[in-house]
């Protein structure tokens, strides 16, 4: 496995020796900004690296993402997990720079192979987006053009980034569809999106995303709207594409079982923050954050009967995110009095497993 490391920070130097972040900064109110230094095995440069990336609404300053830091290596499949409303899609849209600058303010850095993309001009983004980095969404119909045949749409995506003629683009499009395990790509090329099943549309989206051999694919709930059997096929396809092309994936989902099936490593998000990060096996076998524990317990599995243990309540709207303390305090059965008013520090609980909790499990 590549780069198991999870978290880094600009303030890393300041707390290089500290295992618990709040031990390193005298100023209490900035304690939560100090993320422990990363223990990087080797020096392989990450493909993508976020450093304390924060996002707010320009209108009223409502906080949406709070100092998110992580790295993603070449060929890795990283899961981003959390319930609806935790900020997963906003994070993905940030990574591909698709957020409307008039609506949001950002802070922090997003490094793509060592360069901060937040400083890139639009022109550079256009040649990068869809070429180096691609994104697929839960509902493929929102990104497919209903009046264009499938073949034309895949070919168009190719022509946008590769200097090829119409004919060659069509043959590359056919190859891309075949790679996405479409049984009869030639016939599919002539069909319109509405003629396809949900699973086939998602394969077309994957084909478009993979057509220019990107290094990273952001997949936002790609299987949530699909039946379990089609979901299984799409997940297997992702694993195969990674194998064949060496591409990395950031897989966004609300289902830990999906993470278990395909991800090397996962980040758990709650209320605009990453609260736990670990290799998948560690995260599932020894979850340390009470939110992760709650998510795990609420999965139905195949052997239990009757009622399920649930996390009470729901994710609050961003205006109600509590960043003064632990964002999860309102729903946590283990909450201590200080959980509501002190941001939990990051702690390193071993082997690249990080958790942000005052009283980890």
């Amino acid at each position: 496995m590549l780069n198991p490391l999870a978290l880094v920070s600009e303030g890393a130097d300041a707390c290089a020796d500290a295992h618990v972040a709040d031990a390193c900064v005298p100023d209490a109110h900035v304690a939560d900004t100090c993320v422990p230094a990363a223990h990087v095995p080797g020096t392989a440069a990450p493909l993508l690296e976020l450093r304390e990336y924060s996002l707010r609404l320009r209108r009223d300053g409502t906080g949406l993402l709070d100092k998110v830091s992580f790295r993603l290596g070449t060929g890795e499949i990283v899961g981003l997990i959390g319930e609806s409303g935790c900020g997963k899609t906003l994070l993905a849209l940030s990574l591909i720079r698709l957020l409307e600058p008039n609506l949001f303010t950002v802070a922090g850095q997003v490094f793509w192979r060592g360069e901060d993309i937040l400083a890139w001009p639009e022109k550079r983004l256009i040649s990068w987006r869809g070429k180096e980095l691609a994104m697929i969404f839960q509902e493929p119909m929102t990104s497919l053009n209903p009046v264009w045949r499938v073949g034309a749409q895949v070919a168009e995506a190719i022509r946008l980034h590769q200097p090829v003629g119409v004919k060659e683009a069509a043959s590359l499009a056919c190859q891309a569809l075949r790679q996405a395990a479409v049984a009869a790509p030639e016939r599919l090329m002539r069909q319109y999106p509405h003629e396809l099943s949900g699973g086939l549309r998602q394969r077309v989206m994957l084909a478009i995303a993979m057509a220019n051999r990107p290094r990273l694919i952001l997949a936002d709930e790609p299987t949530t709207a699909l039946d379990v059997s089609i979901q299984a096929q799409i997940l297997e396809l992702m694993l195969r594409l990674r194998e064949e092309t060496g591409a990395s994936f950031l897989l966004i989902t609300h289902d830990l079982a999906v993470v278990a099936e395909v991800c090397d490593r996962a980040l758990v998000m709650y209320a605009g923050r990453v609260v736990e990060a670990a290799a998948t096996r560690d995260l599932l076998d020894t979850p340390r954050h009470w939110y992760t524990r709650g998510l795990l317990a609420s999965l139905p599995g195949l052997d239990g009967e009757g009622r399920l243990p649930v996390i009470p309540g729901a994710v609050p709207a961003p205006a109600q995110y509590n960043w003064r303390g632990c964002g999860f305090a309102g729903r946590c059965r283990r909450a201590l009095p200080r959980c509501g008013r002190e941001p939990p520090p990051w702690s390193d609980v071993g082997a690249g497993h990080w958790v942000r909790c005052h009283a980890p499990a």
Partner: protein
Amino acid sequence: MPLLEVEALRKYYRGRGRWRPGKERLIPAVDGISFQVEEGSALGLVGESGCGKTTTGRLILRLETPTAGSIRFDGQDILALRGERLRSWRQQAQMVFQDPQASLHPAMTVGEAIAEPLAYHSALSRREREERARELLAEVGLETVYFHRFPQELSGGQRQRVGIARALSLNPRLLVADEPLSALDVSIQAQILNLFIDLKERRRLTYIFISHNLAVVRRLCDQVGVMYEGRLVELQPVGDLFRAPGHPYTRALLRAIPRLEGRRRE
């Protein structure tokens, strides 16, 4: 005697088939299925989308007319019902949908939406209807503050609770729930699933619970019917089905469920 008896039910549509171009012909959506459901028990119908689960539910509710077959409820021939008695059947059997948003009017408050069926089907006064709606709101686990909210202000899970309260307002005996969890986060699915389990016990409700996920069905249902291309390929008590799935398609469905053991990555 079983409360609901469905026999050799068929529904054919004239069409071109879903994803296939070509000539118009008769397409079987439901192709001769039979089952029985005891009072207070739940039948799970599983299978991939398009296999005929929704159509089966709609036929039972008499929202569509079968091509052939019979449906009996409490000894009554449902397909023979007309006028007032059909109206009464549509009160006794209610539906819960995948996307409650689609069944809730955006200009109606939660309270109004829950009380609305009572205005048409009961002699209750306005005050009594409101009273009843508040009780139902509490029964599905929503605080009274939501009474005056609009559906758009609610989360997906809360909206599904409202959809359930509305379906319960006329004290139905049969609830057809069509993929009621599929649009929700896994964590919220667990909350709503628990609500279905509670209601089943508290009200002795009889369910047809439609889902594509066997793991969910296992928690609630007493029997499971596996549908494939309009037919029931397997029908078993839930324990037996999980212990010894008989049909290869059932085994494929079981294998498809993502597991925490993460077999695919290895």
